[in-house]
């Protein structure tokens, strides 16, 4: 029996999104174009772009229906876990959730996932949560994702976290501060995992000690010792997902790119919330299969692939349709963003210590932590984007600035210049925000991308025109 959505003014982002998403549980596994159109017309205009973003493109649709059902499942599971006495731990999207899943008595919920859902599922796109946070005096230069989530939990009743894990200290001032603020305001413990700005062995060793301290603190908080067997199960699943991810990365190299643009958003969710669980393996496996089949048949959504874009920071996530399928239908393949650059070392599950070492390596080199917590931010960022651009054969980059990310804002001039030198790839710089459309609306982002692809990227790809000789005489 599916509960009837009850929308209360005071409900926070978690409950409201869940109630609305429950509608999709009623969907059959296969839905037609007409049904998608019908749903898009039925829902609030703010959610219409989410419905179309997920379900418009036919060959991705079944997967997306399954995906949303898995999203609902995990959110419901978080609610149940809380009701059963487990402790809900908030983690940022730069922290591997599998570490929390390894505990019997803890359950992770990713803060950026909540913000992403609020922005894509709620009428008003979560803006009131941001506005509330501003109302209590927080600075407007904070990260919208984390601040919206915190705003929602400060505003109303609903699922409250029992603790916050923050691995932002060392790599991100705004998030580290908002996590600390939320813990203080809600009166819950905060466990930190600092990233030393030190890429040497000394830095890695310190980080490993910090991770072990974090585990000890979590053990005390959870009232259980981290079981080696449970850790092994989670690590093996995480490693299996990593293998599939690496396969996925290889598929992106094909021309035209057989991977649907919207899959980038799916993977971001999987890595942030479901890694270390069967659902991540199942969904990744299906996405790989779909992409392989498209590669085999040569299927591509547009008549021609006209540009291969690497997003050098993060996607605009407030309008899934306006960003992902919109580009796909125009022959612009999105190959990834900074959060897609994972380095998974080979796993050694022989002992608890070896698995913790592995997790410490994974976390140290986690996207965003690795670059923004590096000894030199701009060099590491350049190194990784340059690698992705060359490896995947991107022919342009798009940077969509996020007002909270002061390190990328202050390194972008260098990145753009050096990327052009090293890879001959131009960068389009856009001022915008991933979660808040009020910074730059999608129509402007689209206009700029279209112009950039038309006037810069396509022309560079075309045959070089020979200069005409001047007329003799």
């Amino acid at each position: 029996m599916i509960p009837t959505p009850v929308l209360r003014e005071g409900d926070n982002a978690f409950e409201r999104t869940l109630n609305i998403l429950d509608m999709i549980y009623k969907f059959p596994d296969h839905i037609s174009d007409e049904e998608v159109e019908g749903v898009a017309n039925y829902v609030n205009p703010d959610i219409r772009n989410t419905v179309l973003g997920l379900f418009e493109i036919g060959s991705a649709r079944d997967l997306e229906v399954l995906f949303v059902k898995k999203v609902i499942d995990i959110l419901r599971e978080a609610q149940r876990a809380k009701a059963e006495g487990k402790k809900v731990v908030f983690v940022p999207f730069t922290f591997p959730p599998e570490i929390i899943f390894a505990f019997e008595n803890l359950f992770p919920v990713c803060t950026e996932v909540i913000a992403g859902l609020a922005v894509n599922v709620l009428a008003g796109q979560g803006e009131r949560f941001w506005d509330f946070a501003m109302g209590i005096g927080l600075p407007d230069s904070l990260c919208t994702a984390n601040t919206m989530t915190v705003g929602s939990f400060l505003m109303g009743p609903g699922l409250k976290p029992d603790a916050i894990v923050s691995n932002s200290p060392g790599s991100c001032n705004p998030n580290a501060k908002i996590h600390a603020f939320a813990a203080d305001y809600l009166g819950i413990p905060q466990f930190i995992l600092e990233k030393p700005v030190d890429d040497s062995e000394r830095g890695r060793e310190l980080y490993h000690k910090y991770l072990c301290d974090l585990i000890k603190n979590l053990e005390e908080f959870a009232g259980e010792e981290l079981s080696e067997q449970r850790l092994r199960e989670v690590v093996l699943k995480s490693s299996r997902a990593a293998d599939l991810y690496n396969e996925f990365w290889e598929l992106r190299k094909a021309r035209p790119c057989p991977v649907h643009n919207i899959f980038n958003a799916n993977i971001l969710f999987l890595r942030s919330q479901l890694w270390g669980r069967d659902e991540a393996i199942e969904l990744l496996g299906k996405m790989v299969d779909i992409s392989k089949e498209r590669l085999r048949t040569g299927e591509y959504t547009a008549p021609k692939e006209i540009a291969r874009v690497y997003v050098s920071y993060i996607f605009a996530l407030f309008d899934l349709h306006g960003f992902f399928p919109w580009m796909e239908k125009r022959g612009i393949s999105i190959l990834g963003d900074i959060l897609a650059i994972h380095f998974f070392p080979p796993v050694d599950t022989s002992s608890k210590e070896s698995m913790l070492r592995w997790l410490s390596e994974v976390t140290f080199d986690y996207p965003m932590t690795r670059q923004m917590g590096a000894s030199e931010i701009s060099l590491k960022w350049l190194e990784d984007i340059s690698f992705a651009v060359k490896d995947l054969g991107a022919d342009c980059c798009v940077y969509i600035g996020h007002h909270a990310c002061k390190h990328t804002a202050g390194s972008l001039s260098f990145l753009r210049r050096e990327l052009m030198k090293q890879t001959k790839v131009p960068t389009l710089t856009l001022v915008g925000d991933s979660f808040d459309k009020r910074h730059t609306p999608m129509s402007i982002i689209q206009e700029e991308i279209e112009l950039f692809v038309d006037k810069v990227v396509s022309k560079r790809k075309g045959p070089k025109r020979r200069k005409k000789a001047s007329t003799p005489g």
Partner: protein
Amino acid sequence: MSVSLGVQEQAAILTDYVVDWKDRGGKVLAYTCVSMPIEIIEAAGLLPYRLKALGHPDTYLADGELSPLNCSFCRSCLQLGMDGTYNFLDGIIESNGCDHMRVMFENWRRVNEPGFFHYLKVPHFFGEDSLEYFEGELELLKEAICEHFSVEVSDADLTAAMERQQEVRRMFRELCSLRRRERPAVNGSEVLALTINGSSMRSEDFLEVLSGVVEEREGAPGETPRARLMLCGAATDEVKWFEEIERMGGLIVADAQCFGARAFCQDYDTGGDPLRVLAESYLANLFCPRMYTEYDKRRDFILQTARRANVEGVIVLYNKFCDLHGVDAVLLRRDLAEEGIPVLILEKEYSARADIGRVKTRIQAFMERIGGGA
């Protein structure tokens, strides 16, 4: 030495003191943050120089590298690094104070690589592992300085430098006690100007200046201010801001500023391994919002300082885009208000004189609220 003559006129990037030091063959090593144990620089026979911008308004070169979303204090510093103003430095020590600062240095080095550069990596909390790491960092710093400047630094050199710094801190506390009086004998702008100037001096010379000022002002009658204020917040080296506030009748009788009292919080016994003592003292007394699990410690420090100085209101001043101070300010306002101390949060643009009218209006309103209005 008179405070007004001896300090404010010399508050420049390149002071006569620094010129004189350089003329005599001395080397100048810059640093940025209160987390830097300047005793190590002093023990190496160098002049520790804290980077500052002194309200420098131009950022046209820096804006090509940094963005308008980066704090304008960092943009001003970078401007001075790019336009050659800071070419008199023989080296720079970076520390990871904040995200803005980190990218500022990366850009600086690309445009104008200093003769010596070292990155001192400072942990973001105090703990056994972080302390051990920080001690190792200080050892690496010492080795790098010795190698580059061809000097030797013995434990005895370090201990001597530490004893001098302790004297400076003791004298600074004396100065603060004059400021805390019912009729303060020295005001906030004078103290800030002094500490800014002192951040470009050797400790023995700064101690002489401080002692002179304390001696000169000790017997001064002072005046009863209309309002007793405390100033907290980010790196503010704009003496003019302090002057504007005090011109409106509020006297800054205490502070927890980065260029002010927070730079003098370290305290130690000079026995034991010097680097260990320095590591412990600097990391444990870093009352900066960059220390992530230590808000309670900062709040208590501010509360204690405010009570001791019998302040009527606290102004939290920080530059736009400073998330570290911006978030702490909200908690501080809540907690200080609970203790009966009103708080004014002032977010401002660094060096923007256009901002002054708006800020003055807010300060006037705050003064009226706390009963110090004209």
